[in-house]
């Protein structure tokens, strides 16, 4: 339900890139013409090697990309039905929001032959998702216990009302189930199976050669009897993105996800015979580019200054130049791909430098003799070329209204420490990902009173009682319509108050050889199981 209409919507949004839409249509025709074929090795490009590959602990796309083929969640996102059952076949939340009952798929075995039961789900929830997982710590905060009346039923008991809609939305990314018999009684965070994965998924973990590849083998005993189609998936590690494009051209690589091929190369790649550029399949993991603001700076604590900064910036410039059109201007913290929560009934801003300068004058920051009103230090997140380029753009745009900006660069660890622990920044360019429900990934960027050191959260010194109230009442509202209404209020207040500035939103691009079939067929395709992926002749 979360993303029912997103495929068509996404294609409308990207209709500017006509080539890609045309090639996608071509592919679908081809796929429909033949029956799926067993066998073959799929070679995919990977550009990171996470140290901890356990998706139950580290719910991040870099981990999911490899691990989602081995370890499954309870359910996966689906274009038609919203949620497609995987390890769960049915689920029901109680009216008071205190229990959530899950019926599990029977006759599922772990890759080592041990039967999968509700005890595994209970163990994963209580010992891993709630205490250890980056996202689960928030969503399963009030999870008190998980009852297992029989091997096929798990009953989640919450101490406070917890919206069933939230749990449903959390299922694809937050509920990877790991085997109790291999983790119980060990130091879970340091368990060797965090690298040598054992799951229930369509592929078994083969080997990882650092700096070279991950190899996954077909699981002959997969619960969906005709799946998977592929014999093997090999993730080849390419730190250099230019090499990925070259590999796709020569056929050494068949799939590259997460925009590993630089955007500027896409037009050239689309024109190559045998290679397609596919924009869909990431709606469930929409990213935004945001300007994070440190409210501890007295200038930036003034909402007029934040509005002036917003008016000095032109999101469409970032869309056109930084993203070459593969992005959309954002209107608030919930992206337009999230059709169930998104509202456009919010405070909108035009790009207007004169109005921005007038606001700054009014706020008491006139231009000095050197033309500057004040100086700010900007830390662009170093992980995307686009976050760094946006930093360069923001620097130039703010200088236009008399705010001098100095860019400070650091490696990823240094950046996270400086912004989210030390608060050693005035502005930062961030890239939050929206995960299917504002309560999972987004309200944490606005909620006051979080301890220092929680990364990708409100470390901005922003603490608005009205905002906190909306967030806390929405987190306990069981009724779905009422809950959505509260999140609409949330978006409105965020757009008026501008604690952070949401600039643009983007999803990634897949580039693949034409013989790879069933690409981008769910909203988290790159981080889903690839059980139905196959290679045609």
């Amino acid at each position, binding site marked *: 339900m979360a993303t029912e209409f997103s495929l068509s919507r996404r294609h409308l949004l990207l209709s500017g890139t006509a080539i890609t839409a045309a090639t996608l249509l071509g592919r679908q025709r081809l796929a429909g013409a033949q029956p799926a074929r067993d066998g073959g090795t799929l070679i995919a490009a990977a550009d990171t090697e996470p140290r901890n590959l356990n998706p139950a602990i580290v719910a991040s796309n870099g981990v999911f990309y490899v691990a989602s083929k081995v370890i499954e969640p309870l359910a996966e996102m689906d274009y038609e039905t919203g949620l497609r059952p995987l390890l769960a076949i049915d689920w029901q939340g109680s009216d008071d929001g205190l229990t959530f009952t899950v019926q599990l798929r029977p006759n599922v075995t772990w890759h080592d032959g041990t039967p999968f039961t509700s005890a595994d789900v209970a163990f994963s929830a209580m010992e891993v998702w709630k205490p250890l997982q980056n996202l689960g710590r928030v969503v399963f905060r009030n999870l008190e216990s998980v009852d297992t009346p029989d091997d096929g039923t798990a009953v989640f008991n919450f101490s406070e009302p917890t919206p069933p809609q939230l749990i449903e939305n959390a299922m694809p990314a937050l509920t990877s189930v790991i085997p109790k018999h291999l983790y119980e009684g060990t130091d879970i965070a340091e368990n060797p199976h965090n690298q040598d994965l054992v799951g229930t998924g369509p592929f078994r973990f083969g080997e990882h050669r650092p700096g070279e590849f991950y190899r996954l083998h077909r699981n002959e005993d997969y619960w969906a009897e005709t799946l998977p189609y592929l014999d093997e998936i090999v993730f080849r590690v390419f730190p250099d993105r230019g090499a990925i494009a070259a590999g796709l051209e020569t056929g050494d690589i068949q799939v590259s996800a997460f925009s590993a091929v630089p955007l500027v190369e896409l037009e*050239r790649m689309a024109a190559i015979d045998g290679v397609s550029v596919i924009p869909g399949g990431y709606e469930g993991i929409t990213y935004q580019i945001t300007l994070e603001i440190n409210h501890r700076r007295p200038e930036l604590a003034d909402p007029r200054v934040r509005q002036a900064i917003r008016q000095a910036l032109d999101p469409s410039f970032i869309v056109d130049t930084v993203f070459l059109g593969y992005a959309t201007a954002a209107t608030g913290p919930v992206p337009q791909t999230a059709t169930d929560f998104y509202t456009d009934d919010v405070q909108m801003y035009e790009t207007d430098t004169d109005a921005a300068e007038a606001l700054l004058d009014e706020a008491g920051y006139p231009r000095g003799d050197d033309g500057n009103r004040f100086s700010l230090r900007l830390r662009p997140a170093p992980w995307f070329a686009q976050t760094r380029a946006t930093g*360069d753009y923001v*620097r130039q745009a703010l200088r236009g209204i008399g705010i001098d900006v100095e860019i400070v660069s650091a490696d990823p660890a240094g950046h996270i420490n400086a912004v989210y622990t030390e608060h050693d920044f005035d502005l930062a360019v961030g890239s939050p990902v929206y995960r299917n429900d504002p309560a999972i990934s987004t309200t944490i960027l606005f909620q006051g009173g979080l301890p220092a050191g929680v990364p990708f959260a409100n470390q901005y010194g922003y603490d608005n009682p009205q905002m906190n109230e909306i967030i806390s009442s929405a987190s306990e509202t069981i009724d779905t319509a009422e809950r959505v209404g509260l999140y609409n209020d949330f978006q409105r207040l965020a757009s008026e108050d501008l604690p952070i500035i949401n600039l643009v939103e983007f999803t990634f691009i897949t580039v693949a050889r034409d013989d790879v079939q069933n690409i981008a067929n769910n909203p988290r395709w790159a981080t889903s199981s690839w059980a139905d992926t196959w290679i045609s002749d």
Partner: protein
Amino acid sequence: MMRHWSIGGVIGAAVLAVLVLVAIAAPWLAPGDPLDIVGRPLLPPFTDPRFPLGTDQLGRNVFAGLVHGTRVSLLVGLAAAAAAIGVGILVGTVAGFLGGWTDEGLMRVTEAFQTIPTFLLALAMVSALGASTVNVVLAIAISSWPATARLVRAEILSLKSRDYVDAARLAGMSRLGIAFREVLPGAVQPVLALIGITVGVAILVESSLAFLGLSDPNQVSWGGMVANGRAVLRTAPYLVAIPGAAVAVAVLSVSLVGDAMGRRLLVSRER
């Protein structure tokens, strides 16, 4: 004097002089901030007279980047080399002249630095200190002084037992006075030959650090331009070729000049 300058030396000196002029004249050659977005992205060279060398992915003027990058490269190269040679001379003179435990101690420290490759040490230092121009200069200087120190020490050792040194000692000069006023001027000559190499290495290390993203992000740098252009190597190779060629030309000219100075020195010593 000119007849001892090889053709390479003359060419090197001429190119270097041009680079210095460009560096000095950068604000007039390409006014404004070279990091500003000024045009359509990815304009190829020689298509728009406003951007003679084209624009990069963000629409920044490549010519402006090249010109202002000359400033950064030469400034960092010269400053780092000057600092490295200064430290090297100081350590080499003190070690060579005082001898004994001082010499032992200082030379062990020098060797400790020599065991770590110049680039790795600079990389580690800039990562730890943060990416700013001053830190880059400091890191390059600290990682490249040992060669000078060893050379100066060797020269001092061979000079310090000469008669004129004994004469100075009999005249009652202090030891450090003798070292720095009497012995050092004679020992410094071969260091001149090292300048070319040291400056060249410094420019190269600065570019490499910038290529890895370890340079002041508020200043344009050739290495940074190459790193930026690498992502679009297939569609816009000029974004890598132009700053890459600039690094090559600068390093070559500096080492040609250094080489020529070394040769001249050799000739004058043999006479």
